[in-house]
């Protein structure tokens, strides 16, 4: 059984008290510690900057050409905080409660409470950094309600909240680079974690432009390397997002938790053909004013505007009168799938549902709508060639976020001592489903306000020790493994491109481990994936050399890891014979077709241990106890 090392005491004071109880590194000694931070997204950049400010010596790594470009930049909607600036009854407790409930009771209470608690500090910090959040005319911060929340607690910067928060963190990081506390390495991909005497001792990285492989050691390693939705091939993630860092840590002994908890976002633009390379998200905030519908008649041929009210099915409003179009993501997604599967899909490929702004434009006026969503409308028009002011948007669910990730304890430490995971890379806080505007909050909470404290507790006892020498045999071995893999890809000389395999893998996952999962489907996937992987190993074609930029080669390594991960996702989904949040097992549903949890058997985190390729992973469980939140069947009626 896994021990999360959650501190004792009432939930409201756990974190405060624990901060007091943890061991401290005194300011003068901090510079004696070296910390490696991999990833400079919201989580990684905020952590590296803060650790640098505290005085640690930090080495930060990203495969991006600049720390300003992480996937976090694409977040549109906003970031939650329990400020209660609008006196609408919000509080830390309510944010905590909503998050646990939204996660369908599969997250750790203490972590979520801490998240809600520090959410307010994040807003303070970001405003002080110059993040241009939206303001009201009086000059105070504006908020909106977002993704199913019944209070206005979402702070936003036009439709570019992630961009502005990331740039804030990037700037804080740049300041530390200038100050010399952080050494920033861009264009370097981490390809292995080195473990010496059971502790994380360093990493192996490859320079994407020159192919040079190098070793770096430190007292602790932090991974803020993002989520793995790209396992599905088509997702809303940036093209280069991948699981490699987390996966290679997993292969070195870090447990991977709840891999099957993936979030399918309801409002992406449906794909237009089979060569589509990625899906574009339309911010969830659109559901605040847009109404979702499909024609009642599957054979409808009229233009959307000509379809009279009585022939439209506003299925969410009908089915969930209290929440209507604002039901949580998983519910909205599954319902869209039901409509499309029933043949009522819209658009040329009949693969979407309408999101209609005609009412909102009538009620608020075109200008007000343009003010709120202008850039999203523009983006939509650019992609589809259709003007959403005139014609309803078409949307369809797309893989978007992964709640699963490296298992971490209350200190955000993985099962490898000295290896920490933050942001989307870890599994914490969101349970089986993430609420809108909570990922940015979690990434920054981890990076700015949690990890910089908890890491001290690990480091303090090591005062006086130096990082392991990179000439240690463990480094030799890890580097040799990395080199061998690179050489293998280049030598295979098969017939198919890396992208082809990735696309095929994505189809298997989407069909069997996507919005709906069944025992038979998962079994099928579990037989298809290894077969495809085998083919990949023998038949992939990677051209060019390892000494210059070679994106096929980069992708090959990432896709190899997706293969192994995909298997684990399916195995986890198969083992979890309940429906919860984003994980919908057809065998476990209510009579109305809603997700049916099984709290008696599955109120736990499944954390998987790697035992080698081809051998079954071992499941470890962390039981979840709920003292403050009452477990109820979610209902949005």
């Amino acid at each position, binding site marked *: 059984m896994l021990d999360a090392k959650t501190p004792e005491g009432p939930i409201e004071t756990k974190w405060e008290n624990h901060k007091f109880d943890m061991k401290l590194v005194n300011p003068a000694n901090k510079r004696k510690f070296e910390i490696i931070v991999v990833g400079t997204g919201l989580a990684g950049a905020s952590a590296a900057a803060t650790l640098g*400010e505290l005085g640690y010596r930090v080495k930060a790594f990203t495969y991006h050409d600049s720390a300003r470009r992480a996937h976090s930049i694409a977040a549109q909607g906003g970031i939650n905080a329990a400020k209660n600036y609008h006196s609408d009854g919000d509080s830390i407790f309510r944010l905590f409660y909503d998050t646990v409930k939204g996660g369908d009771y599969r997250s750790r209470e203490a972590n979520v409470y801490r998240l809600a608690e520090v959410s307010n500090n994040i807003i303070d910090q970001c405003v002080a950094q110059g993040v241009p959040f939206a303001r009201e005319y009086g000059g105070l911060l504006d908020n909106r309600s977002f993704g199913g929340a019944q209070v206005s607690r979402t702070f936003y910067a036009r439709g570019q909240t992630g961009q502005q928060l990331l740039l804030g963190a990037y700037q804080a990081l740049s*300041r530390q680079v*200038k*100050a010399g506390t952080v050494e920033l390495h861009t264009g370097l991909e981490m390809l292995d974690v080195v473990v010496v005497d059971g502790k994380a001792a360093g990493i192996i990285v490859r320079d994407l432009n020159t192919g040079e492989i190098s070793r770096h050691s430190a007292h602790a390693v932090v991974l803020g390397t993002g989520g793995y939705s790209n396992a599905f091939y088509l997702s809303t993630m940036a093209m280069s997002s991948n699981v490699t860092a987390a996966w290679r840590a997993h292969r070195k002994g870090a447990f991977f938790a709840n891999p099957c908890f993936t979030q399918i976002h309801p409002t992406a633009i449906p794909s237009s053909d089979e060569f589509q390379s990625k899906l574009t998200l339309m911010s969830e905030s659109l559901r605040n004013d847009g109404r979702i519908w499909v024609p009642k008649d599957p054979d409808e041929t009229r233009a959307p505007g000509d379809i009279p009210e009585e022939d439209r099915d506003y299925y969410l409003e009908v089915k969930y009168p209290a929440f209507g179009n604002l039901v949580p993501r998983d519910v909205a997604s599954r319902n869209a799938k039901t409509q499309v599967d029933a043949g009522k899909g819209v658009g040329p490929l009949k693969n979407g549902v309408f999101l209609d702004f005609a009412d909102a434009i009538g009620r608020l006026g075109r200008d007000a709508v343009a003010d709120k969503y202008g850039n999203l409308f523009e983006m939509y028009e650019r992609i589809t060639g259709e003007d959403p002011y005139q014609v309803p948007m078409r949307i369809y669910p797309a893989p978007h976020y992964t709640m699963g990730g490296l298992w971490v304890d209350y200190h955000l430490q993985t099962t490898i001592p000295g290896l920490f995971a933050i942001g989307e890379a870890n599994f914490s806080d969101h349970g089986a489903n993430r609420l809108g505007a909570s990922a940015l909050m979690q990434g920054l909470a981890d990076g700015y306000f949690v990890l910089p404290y908890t890491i001290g507790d690990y480091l303090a006892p090591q005062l006086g020790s130096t990082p392991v020498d990179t000439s240690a045999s463990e480094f030799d071995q890890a580097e040799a493994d990395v080199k061998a893999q690179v050489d293998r890809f280049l030598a295979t000389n098969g017939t198919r491109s890396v992208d082809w395999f990735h696309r095929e893998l994505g189809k298997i996952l989407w069909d069997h481990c996507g919005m709906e999962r069944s025992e038979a489907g998962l079994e099928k996937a579990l037989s298809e994936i290894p077969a495809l992987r085998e083919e990949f190993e023998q038949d992939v074609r990677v051209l060019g050399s390892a000494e210059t930029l070679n994106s096929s080669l980069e992708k090959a390594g990432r896709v190899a890891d997706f293969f192994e991960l995909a298997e684990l996702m399916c195995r986890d989904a198969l083992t979890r014979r309940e429906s919860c949040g984003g994980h919908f097992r057809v065998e476990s549903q209510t009579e109305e077709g809603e997700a049916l949890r099984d709290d008696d058997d599955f109120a736990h985190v499944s954390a998987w241990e790697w035992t080698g390729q081809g051998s079954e992973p071992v499941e470890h469980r962390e039981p979840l106890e709920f003292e403050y939140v009452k477990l109820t069947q979610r209902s949005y009626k």
Partner: protein
Amino acid sequence: MATKVSHGDDAATGSRRTPFLVELYRSALGKKYLMAISGIVFMGYVLAHMLGNLKLYQGPEEFNKYAEFLREGLLTPILPESGMLNLLRLVLLVSLVVHVVAAVQLTRMNKQARPESYRSKRDYVAADFASRTMIWTGTIVLLFVAYHLADLTWGWVNPAEAGATVYDKVVASFSVPAVAAFYLVANLALGVHLYHGVWSLFQSLGINNRRFNHWRRALAVGFTVVVVGGNLSFPIAVQVGLIS
């Protein structure tokens, strides 16, 4: 916790600080700033020069009187004879040196910023002919000014006989078709230069206000039309015999 950007050199040299303008000039932004200021000086000059020359239309007497006044009348007796004119000449000369040297230095900097030019043909959207040819229109104007001075101020290349009045010199010069043509070309170049320069100086000086910005282009066009229109009329008037 401000990380102060260090001013190491200044601190070390203490009181021996370089003058503000020199310090400013070291940066490209500062050069542009001084180019704008010197540009304004030239704007004043070309406008006054054009207005004064309109006296050509009032006949030789008025025009020669005006030329005399410039030499002697300006602010005398406060200043000695020709004092103001020389002062103005000095200002113009300094402006010229600043404007030209800065332009050359900046052009060199810009070349270095793109040592390898695009191999494919550029398709410009906003960069108009005027803005892309400043260095060439400027060069033409500069060459012309040299000739113009040699012609009318120092009289080295003037076709009129020695001791001719200023008016006669002008008419003699513009009667030569090649000179008139050069004058026309140079003024068209000046027009193109002004069209971009007058607009551009607001940007360089940082004079920017969303309420008034649209006037900047109008001013540039208006100013260019007035100055160049006036200037162009002189050789034409001589050539067609309006002035003789």
